[in-house]
């Protein structure tokens, strides 16, 4: 879509005004600074998804739309988790981060901050795998997506 002030609120407003659900929404400028790319994760019956597609296309700022779930695609989300890391839990936490291919990017005597990427399911699985009482804070970016193979979204 056009990288214009207000474009994001048009999309967000459309979803709330028409009662569509947004599971996540990510947006940032692309290599062409006049454009930004947004990934929206939503849920609905085929009819609702069809309407969402049409309504989004109708927004004047939207240039092109692709339903990634029409084909095979890759989803990635970034999560930062601050966890308590003390005593024997400290070693265990590092082991879990390794298993999930997370990176520990900040360390204090009592905590780790772990960076984890993957699809939403993997991130949730990590949170379920560790001791819930050790979780101090989490922040997730929401999903970004891209089609597999040669299929591209470009204007």
């Amino acid at each position: 879509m056009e990288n214009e002030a207000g474009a994001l609120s048009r999309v967000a407003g459309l979803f709330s005004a028409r009662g569509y659900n947004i599971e996540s929404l990510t947006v940032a400028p692309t290599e062409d600074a006049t454009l930004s790319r947004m990934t929206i994760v939503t849920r609905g019956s085929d009819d609702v998804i069809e309407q969402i597609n049409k309504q989004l296309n109708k927004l004047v700022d939207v240039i092109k739309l692709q339903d990634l779930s029409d084909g095979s695609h890759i989803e990635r989300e970034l999560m930062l988790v601050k966890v308590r890391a003390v005593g024997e839990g400290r070693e265990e936490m590092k082991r879990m981060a390794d298993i999930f291919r997370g990176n520990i990017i900040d360390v204090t005597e009592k905590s780790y901050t772990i960076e984890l990427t993957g699809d939403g399911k993997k991130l949730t699985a990590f949170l379920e795998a560790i001791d819930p009482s050790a979780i101090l804070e989490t922040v997730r970016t929401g999903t970004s997506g891209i089609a597999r193979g040669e299929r591209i979204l470009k204007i």
Partner: protein
Amino acid sequence: MKSLVLAPFQHLVCSTMADTELTGAEIVIRCLHAEGVKHVFGYPGGAVLNIYDEIYKQDGFKHILVRHEQAAVHAADAYARSTGQVGVALVTSGPGATNAVTGIATAYMDSIPMVVITGQVPTAAIGMDAFQEVDTVGITRPCVKHNFLVKDVRELAETMKKAFYIAATGRPGPVVVDIPKDVTQNTCAFVYPESVSMRSYNPTSKGHTGQIKKAAQMLLEAKRPMLYVGGGAVLGNGAEPVRALARKLGFPVASTLMGLGAFPEPDPQNLGMLGMHGTYEANMAMQHCDVLLAIGARFDDRVIGNPKHFGKEARRIIHIDVDPSSISKRVRVDVPIVGAVDQVLTDMLKQIDGVPDATALKAWWAQIELWRAQDCMKYDRASPVIKPQAVVEALYKVTGGAAFVASDVGQHQMWAAQYYKFNEPRRWINSGGLGTMGFGLPAAMGIAMAHPDAPVVCITGEGSIQMNIQELSTCKEHKLPIKVILLNNGVLGMVRQWQEFFYEERYSESYVTSLPDFTMLAEAYGHVGMKIERPEDVEPALIKAFTEHKDELVFMNFITDPRENVYPMIPAGKGLSEMILI
């Protein structure tokens, strides 16, 4: 170049450059001239004073000072509805913009091309809770086709061009251009772009050839065909091809409230209006047809009633609409055609290379005539009190069906739609989608400005007229000879009707007491007032209004039966064949 000039000289440089540069305010005016705008409806205030100062100096268009911003927007809207050109309104920031919102939403719901220019506080003051600041772009976002905040005078001309382009093309709609005061002061060179191209906005007008072929074939195969004509046929100047297609095929035609006039109503092929208050024959035919061609209509809940009930009968649906999101929104269709009605129908006509099944069509018409024989529009013509339907019928007779009829919202609106037989598109001007009481009188003003020699009436109720009655003053100033037809039943009739039918006659707050003496009120504004209380006086009064007082605004207060209801009626949530008949 400028950057080479030393600071102390900068002022000098700017002032000499001012010869070739225009202020934002001048640019606004020049853009409106370039767009061929002849009328602007508006109301001044601090944020638009620079623009108003430039209006003072020009005579390319006429500015009509309304008495409330809502009226400016309705007037511009009706101007557009009656001419097909983009309507223009101009209001100040803050309360000017918020007063305009109802008008903008009204136009949005009915897809009316309009540009609304709103003043805004200076860019540096935005976000500071400045005097008369509101987030106009934010407030109007859900009820505009698009909107812009112009942050730099150098973007102004192009933005204006885009605004007109977006408003008028594709599915039309209102566009708001919010201009901060400093932008109207700042200067730059003025070039009005000849055309715009926007990579993110490319409406389609030509329909898919294969789909059109398929549709033509389907129409020829139909046993019980039906044309369902909507507002898009009026907005998209599709009346001619609609008529040509209907006549070529001999199919029955019915219209939505917004499509009235696209096909001539007195024509025997016309079944009348569809929907909640549509005719028995139109609704029954809609329910029982086997091939339905929807032309610029959006399967509104007031038209097809309950979609589940509608879906009970098997039928194949062809849907022509310029907006893909109107297609398969409430009802699944078999042959979607995205395109402009005039182009698609013209192409479709060329594809029709046979004749329909004459035997089947004859049987279908025989069935329709049986439905028509129900005479669902009958009412008590011998009533000792004035029946509202009789006033509309008399109006039709007296004006020869040639008037522009603006309406407010309520029972009177339905009676106007049912009993005035529109021969031409763009003559019936009403708020269908939003149903805005207060629309009628300002709408009539917009029409009267656009068509100074045509008869213009405003059919209204005593509830609705009081929602913008201050505009009688604007009408006086501009000598607009509107005939206000007040169907005064002393009640918020449409509300009362629902309370009678669905709330066991608990008439909660639907009786309007302490009504003004409308004759005196009209006279106070300098107009002619009339009160008509007996059925036999209806026609003579109308004749008098249209002859003796041809050039004056006549406020005609018809005292009508307070208990009359609009029939037929499909209760909300019911199906097309579940009508309440009289």
